[in-house]
């Protein structure tokens, strides 16, 4: 009984230490500087389009509508929408420099959520959700007590320019860190539920999609399923263990480095820019007091003295309270945005020539789009057709065009779903196009690939051959290969498709 009570006490103490240990909020301050900046990048891109994306004069489609709940949030007229949008931008910029930090984060976070929810088609994504969580947690954190205008003003008021940074309970930072553990664990569960993720097909098709920014590396890697297969398992394992390893001081930076490379990988392979930027900014919450001390030790020679700093920072006389200045600045920012947007005249409705005209298209072009539908070509039911000799995880691992007698030709065809149950044939032809051998198999509708094995036996002679893929009586693709060497005397493994 006493032992269990002791364990209970230890657990409470551990939890209490985990959440309420006091530390200087270096991690929170760094996240405050970088995260709103990254969250702002896509929002700044949308600034000239507020009228179109978020106002009643445009086409906002709320997330609630996407989920079938109708218009839950009020859609504002263009004027108020632009004013609030500019206020959001202003607040997030203020959060970056730490001016009226908590108020800025509070307003900025609420407006960021609102504008994301208002446009479920062109604004809301999972990175917006992660950013929103982090912004909320920054709002309740003491992130403005370090490296901020607020702190500078506080020091100026107290007259103590070299005050030691204050320590605070660490729980908001812990929640940010836990958020990442939940995100990765949830993402791993999604992947586990997606069978095609572990065979590489899902990522291959995503890499070949042109829905994000350019991803030439992704297009190259997409054609090597074994790489996708191995990386799929590594990703899921890392996503699950992240939450268990990242609080270990010895493993923390190793785990985060893998995470950073994983996110950079999404940039290279999938053409994602903002998602990795948001996540890497969020990683800064893992920076602790000890980490900063360590870095400071190494850059000590470069450290500016307080006298140098005081020369850099201008002596601004305290004319108005910070809150009043902040309010005036926010008002000027919003007014400027409204006026600029009005002058921009996005839809061209106030131009001298009147409204812009729709582009007329040739009747033949329109008819080609509206004509009777073309049935799906047989060849479009197939993705690729390759020859090799080794497989990894049920996928062709290499590609070959030269074989020797006794070797096995492994033939793989990948299919584009959806497709019906298919009878697919593989035909071996000589260099004159004469069929030598043929074998077929049923590829059922749920299958994403089919394999044929052909052992090069003694009935063939050295020379050039073709392996032809046929379906529904039509040739889909052909691959040429060469057999060299001397035919063997006896054959092995009669179960294989062989001559």
């Amino acid at each position: 009984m006493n032992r269990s009570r002791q364990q209970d006490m230890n657990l409470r103490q551990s939890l209490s230490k985990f959440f309420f240990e006091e530390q200087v909020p270096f991690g929170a301050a760094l996240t405050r500087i970088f995260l709103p900046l990254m969250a702002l990048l896509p929002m700044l891109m949308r600034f000239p389009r507020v009228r179109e994306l978020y106002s009643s004069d445009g086409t906002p489609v709320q997330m609630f509508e996407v989920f079938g709940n109708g218009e839950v949030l009020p859609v504002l007229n263009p004027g108020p929408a632009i004013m609030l949008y500019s206020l959001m931008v202003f607040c997030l910029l203020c959060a970056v420099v730490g001016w009226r930090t908590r108020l800025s984060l509070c307003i900025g976070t609420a407006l960021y959520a609102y504008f994301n929810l208002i446009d479920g088609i062109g604004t809301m994504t999972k990175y917006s959700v992660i950013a929103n969580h982090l912004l909320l947690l920054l709002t309740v954190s003491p992130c403005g007590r370090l490296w901020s205008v607020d702190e500078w003003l506080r020091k100026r008021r107290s007259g103590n320019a070299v005050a030691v940074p204050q320590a605070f309970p660490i729980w908001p930072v812990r929640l940010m860190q836990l958020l990442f553990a939940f995100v990765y664990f949830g993402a791993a569960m999604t992947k586990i539920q997606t069978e095609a993720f572990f065979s590489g097909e899902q990522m291959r098709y995503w890499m070949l999609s042109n829905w994000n920014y350019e991803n030439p590396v992704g297009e190259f890697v997409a054609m090597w399923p074994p790489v996708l297969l191995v990386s799929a398992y590594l990703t899921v394992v890392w996503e699950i263990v992240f939450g268990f390893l990242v609080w270990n001081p010895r493993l923390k930076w190793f785990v985060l480095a893998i995470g950073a490379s994983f996110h950079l990988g999404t940039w290279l392979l999938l053409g994602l820019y903002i998602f990795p930027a948001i996540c890497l900014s969020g990683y800064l919450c893992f920076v602790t007091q000890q980490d900063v001390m360590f870095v400071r030790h190494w850059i000590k020679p470069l450290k500016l003295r307080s006298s140098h700093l005081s020369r850099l920072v201008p002596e601004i006389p305290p004319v108005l309270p910070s809150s009043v200045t902040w309010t005036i600045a926010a008002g000027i920012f919003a007014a400027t945005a409204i006026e600029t947007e009005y002058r921009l005249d996005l839809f061209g409705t106030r131009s001298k020539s009147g409204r812009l005209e729709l582009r007329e298209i040739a009747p033949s072009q329109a008819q080609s789009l509206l004509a009777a539908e073309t049935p799906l070509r047989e060849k479009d039911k197939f993705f690729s057709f390759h020859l090799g000799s080794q497989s990894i995880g049920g996928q062709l691992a290499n590609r070959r065009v030269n074989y020797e007698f006794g070797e096995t030709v492994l033939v793989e065809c990948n299919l584009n779903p959806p497709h019906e149950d298919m009878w697919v044939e593989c035909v071996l032809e000589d260099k004159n196009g004469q069929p030598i051998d043929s074998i077929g198999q049923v590829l059922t509708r749920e299958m994403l690939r089919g394999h044929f094995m052909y052992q090069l036996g003694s009935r063939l002679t050295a020379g050039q051959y073709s392996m032809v893929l046929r379906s529904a009586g039509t040739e889909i693709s052909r691959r040429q290969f060469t057999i060299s060497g001397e035919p063997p005397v006896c054959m092995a493994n009669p179960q294989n498709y062989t001559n």
Partner: protein
Amino acid sequence: MSRTGRWCVGLFIGCYLGILTLGIVAHCLKIGLSGNTLSYYVVWDMFCGWNAYDQRTHLIAESESGRYYEVSEPWGAFRPYGKLGRIQYDVYNHMVSKHIDHILSHTKHEPINRVFVVQEFWPKQYNLPESLWKQNFGRERDKLSYYHLRAVCNNEGRFVNNYPDWLNQQQMNAVGDNPRLRHEVQQARASFGTWSIPTDSTSGMQEQNTAILMPSTN
């Protein structure tokens, strides 16, 4: 920190972690997510879906005089995540109506009779650049786009006719490519006798019966 403050923080931490846990559990067990917008904030299903075909949407307006117009923003489409206009990310047609109405009401044009919503599909392997195509495919690059009429709208963007999505159509074709199954489907009759109770004795109104047999999409 005061004792009360600590309790408040503890409550916040508990609620926050509870909500995150709920999201993971709901996602794993697939419960409580349908129609729940706020679940989007706690479910981490990035890149959950995929398909083998790339898709674009074309909006073609037919005027009273029989001319055709492209219904796209003359002021330039907003491209939220890459090279594609915003309408292209609306794969389930949530925005099409508003989009058509918005463009027609903000542009100069002759009277429009109807607007066709046409889907274009092609296999994703044709997205590969020429060099990679040559390396990986031993055949001619003869890309063919499949056009499919998804809907017809009036000049205010309201749907007049709606047709199945091309991919769903292909799926149905694949399943329907089975004479036995096709025969059984043709023989079968749906019965919805339990859809409603004729009259409720107390209120005198018809009530929806929740004990109904419905086909599931899961």
